[in-house]
């Protein structure tokens, strides 16, 4: 009897734990979208106010942040610095492609980031700023959508975890 109780307790804890992990995942995407917006904001300041070079701007941006998304900015910085002859667009696109899997961002987010690269570095300051603002706005929309999905899914995953655990215990008993 005691064994049964201990066993069912274990099952319930495990499944609710899984539920919590999933619900945490849901919260990650809006969080990361926010982080990217923050780093783009730094980029904008570096470019428009300080007129710094792209490589320096990216360095400042990635060092300001320790989130997984800063990896994209970090590798863009590295691609810009080494002398393989990448232009700004290639360096950015490569960085996004290499690192998007390490984040919780989805394909739509990736598309937005990719199109950000198209104008990177090759216009005047106003062009750069409007490009950054456009991307920030698009990411904000994504963030709102992601936030809604999070609200829906977060509680669902949690409930599903706990209830699933109880259901399997009942079945097994």
């Amino acid at each position, binding site marked *: 009897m005691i064994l049964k109780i201990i066993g069912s307790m274990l099952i319930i804890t495990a499944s609710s734990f899984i539920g919590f992990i999933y619900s945490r995942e849901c919260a990650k995407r809006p969080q990361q979208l926010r982080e990217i917006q923050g780093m783009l904001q730094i980029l904008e300041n570096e*470019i428009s106010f300080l007129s710094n*070079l792209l*490589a320096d701007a990216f360095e400042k941006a990635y060092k300001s942040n320790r989130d997984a998304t800063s990896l994209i900015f970090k590798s863009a910085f590295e691609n810009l610095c080494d*002398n393989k*002859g990448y*232009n700004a667009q290639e*360096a950015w696109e490569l960085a996004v492609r290499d690192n998007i899997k390490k984040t919780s961002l989805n394909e739509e987010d990736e598309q937005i980031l990719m199109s950000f690269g198209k104008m990177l*570095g090759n216009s005047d*300051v106003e062009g750069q700023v409007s490009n950054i603002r456009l991307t920030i706005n698009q990411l904000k929309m994504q963030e709102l959508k992601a936030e809604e999905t999070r609200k829906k899914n977060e509680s669902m995953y949690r409930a599903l975890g706990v209830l699933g655990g109880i259901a399997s215990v009942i079945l097994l008993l």
Partner: protein
Amino acid sequence: MIAEDKVEDKKHPLENEIIPYISQNLRDVLKRIDYSSLADIEEIRLRACKPVTLLNSAGDWYVTENGRLTRTRINLCIASQIDLTKTLELMSEKSIYAYQDEVKNGFITLRGGHRVGIAGRVVMENGSVKNIKDISGLNIRISREIPGCSEQVIRHIICGSRDIYNTLIISPPQCGKTTLLRDITRIVSDGLPSLNFTGLKVGLVDERSEIAACYKGVPQNNVGMRTDVLDGCPKVIGMDMMLRSMSPRVIVTDEIGNPGDRDAVLRVLNAGVKIITTAHGYSISDLKARREVLGLIEEKAFDRYIVLSNANGPGTLEEVVDGLTMKRRWP
């Protein structure tokens, strides 16, 4: 120790400061050139669909595809327009926006103070240049630091142990005007014990980043211990800012002659600050055709005129003239 290291680095400005910014195709060819033959190189010229040309004191040379310098026209290395566009992209460190203001003036300055002139199709907006597109020509001028090149000149500039004369250096293009000015700045700032001259506070307005060659605000060339550098600042504004903020004893700036320069120089002199500057020209009479400079000559703003030429290589001292009496002091 640190200073010694810097001298070592300076030996091959081409290798570190120019070659990495040239497009891959041309870079491969230029790398094959024997560096000993590049020692006194002054210019590298890239033109769309034309052979790559190098210029040194012996004249200009074509480069062959395997990196030999020649004057015959066989197997030459031809630059394409894509090469030029890529080169400019690399030179602006992939950040055209940061160099926009410089491109508007027709040139950008590389790290190390090398000036790159740009030719191409100009985009206009409201009567001023907005951008240059379809690049068709790049002229890379290699700047070189020659410590001690002003030895002959400096004794004409120094006046006692704690003062100098207001000086105008007159020289045709490519005769070492900027190189000389840089060395004078260094000596005026550091002092010269052999002439019993103690250094003065110097404010350097380096509009084109050629004299001090600042990288991230720090001078890469030795311009002296008592020198404050205002990098990339227009001369007229820069001279006033220096006067107000840094209390210099001497203000140094390059290439006067634009509208407004005359008044700015007079403001400096009225504040009791000395000035050392340069102007394009072959002789003093040549300068009188230019209004801004003529005004300064008539007001006797300068105490010394130093005229350079190319007669015995760049930086040949042609004459030194006293500004008050307009009499020759040297030779």
